[in-house]
């Protein structure tokens, strides 16, 4: 993980600020930074999204391919996650440096989606036991400024919302052989229901309090954080402690409650935003290249609503 050096005096300053519910950048303890979401950014994918959260930038591309369903679940398709920590995010990721973080992130994503509700996997089935859609969700980290999990989960939700899977037609010939025909019409496509796709909320324990959407400086002051993936109904699909410290059971319960509250409040504005952007269609300005720092135009409120304090 990208790290910053924070001096003792800075740490004390951050700690005391958080104790009084005032963070270095003026936010409250349960506020997110400015978030920008743009969908349909890479033309070669079936669905893509770019999310910037503060200075953290994440690009997600979804590619649909026809594969063979897993023998244990012949009537379902599946998702594959891959997180690439590119060297332009931080020089530490050069060579194989980002591999460890990449596997950690992708393994967590598998856990987050390891339930029957998040995505209707049955809708990805083409022909039971023989063919199904495999969605390759590739995450590219463009810039790291803390809170990767939250940015990635929002980007994945946006990219899956944007995913258009071409409709298939199965015809069988006289000998019982099956033929799969893909629809040529780009508008004749299947969309995924992303209502139940969870969002991850990372809570950093700093001092005796916890903060949402920690920057790298704040992260350096915390010993442990808890990541919680919350659905729009408020159920939790994955919870995990990350970091080298330990947590009191009571503070874990407190953080779970706060995470649920924040995560639940994240979904409604996010869905509204995605639908709004979708309705604008081709009128909006599109960015096909994906360099961090490029001005992005997307219709959105200045800040994500993040529930009551």
């Amino acid at each position: 993980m990208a790290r910053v050096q924070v001096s003792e005096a800075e740490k004390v300053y951050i700690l005391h600020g958080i104790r009084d519910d005032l963070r270095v950048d003026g936010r409250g303890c349960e506020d997110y930074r400015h978030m920008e979401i743009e969908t349909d950014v890479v033309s070669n994918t079936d669905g893509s999204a770019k999310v910037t959260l503060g200075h953290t930038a994440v690009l997600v591309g979804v590619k649909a391919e026809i594969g063979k369903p897993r023998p244990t679940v012949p009537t379902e398709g599946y998702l594959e996650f891959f997180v690439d920590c590119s060297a332009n995010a931080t020089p530490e990721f050069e060579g194989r440096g980002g591999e460890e973080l990449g596997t950690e992130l992708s393994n967590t994503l598998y856990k987050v989606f390891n339930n029957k509700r998040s995505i209707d996997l049955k809708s990805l089935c083409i022909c039971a036991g023989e063919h199904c859609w495999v969605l390759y969700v590739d995450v590219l980290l463009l810039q790291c400024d803390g809170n990767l999990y939250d940015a990635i989960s929002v980007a994945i939700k946006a990219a899956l919302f944007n995913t258009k899977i071409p409709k298939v037609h199965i015809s069988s010939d006289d000998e019982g052989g099956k033929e799969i025909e893909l629809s040529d019409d780009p508008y004749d496509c299947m969309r995924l229901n992303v209502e139940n796709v969870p969002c991850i909320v990372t809570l950093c324990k700093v001092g005796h309090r916890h903060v949402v959407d920690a920057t790298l400086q704040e992260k350096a002051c915390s010993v442990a954080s808890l990541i919680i993936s919350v659905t729009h109904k408020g159920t939790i699909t994955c919870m995990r402690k990350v970091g080298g410290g330990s947590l009191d059971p009571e503070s874990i319960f407190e953080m779970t409650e706060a995470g649920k509250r924040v995560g639940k409040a994240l979904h409604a504005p996010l869905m509204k935003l995605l639908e709004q952007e979708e309705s604008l269609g081709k009128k909006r300005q599109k960015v096909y290249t994906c360099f961090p720092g490029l001005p992005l135009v997307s219709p959105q409120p200045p800040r994500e609503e993040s529930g009551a304090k």
Partner: protein
Amino acid sequence: MTNSPCPHPDNKPFSGQPEKEKTWGGKRFRAGPVAWVIYFNMPTDTKRVRGPEVSQSPSLFSCDPAAVLPSKGPRADGRRRDQVDVRPVFVRCGLVSQAKGSAYLEAGNTKLMCCVYGPRETDRKDETDMKCGRLTTDMRFAPFSCPERGSWIQGSQDKDFSLMLHESLQPAICLHKYPRSQIEVSVMVLENSGSVLAHAVTCASLALADAGIEMYDLVLGCSMRQDGTSYVVDPSYMEENGCSSVSCENQGGLTVAFLPSLNQISGLQSDGDMTEETLTAGVRTCIEGCYKLYPVIQRALTKAVRKAAPSQSES
């Protein structure tokens, strides 16, 4: 090694290890180290085994084990549902004489062993911390440990387990007492019968204690599985992977690593789909399960220390 005329007098296709070569039913094969190579007027590409590219365990095609598990009544091994009913645990320290510390743990059919090496000089000089020691964890599953054969190569799931183990153990070890050195923990799962991660944490902390590494507390692991309204503590492999098809609400697994005397949670991992209340209750249940394990582990440790004491005084 082609079918071209061979200079060997008795026209054997191999020049090396001719004594191992046998003729059997008209087919000449070599009991060599490479692979099965069958010679029977075959084209030049002889090294390839013409089987299907991927093979699957026959158990997948026989009766489906993960079909339906009863969500009521006693469990398959006679334990009670909705109770903190952990499997009896067998633990021993000092198994591997080469290692600084080691432990073996058996809970039901889940069997695993852990070795601790170090503290010693770090391999990676670039990551040497002057103030703090480094902990490395490695968790592996033996290929025969699960119903389906695994691979010897560490997969991404094993890496995930290693990471969880690392995060669960690190808060308990006084790493600042071991500057510029590295402590290696390796766990080998011999038989997977559920709750592997939880038992791996317990076993590893015992091995660390056996190695004499300074720790704040022992780390104990416990896991549970929620299935609708009922739950099972310390689930078996079947209970972990099978699901009752009744409902898909409130299902999931939870693993907690707990430091009993400090009352701290050092590791937490859940998946599935659960409400917050269920999860909170689950964490409490797991903590209770950890307390049940505590005296057993303490006893194993004191036994190991007693055993080691006289030999030390002699020398």
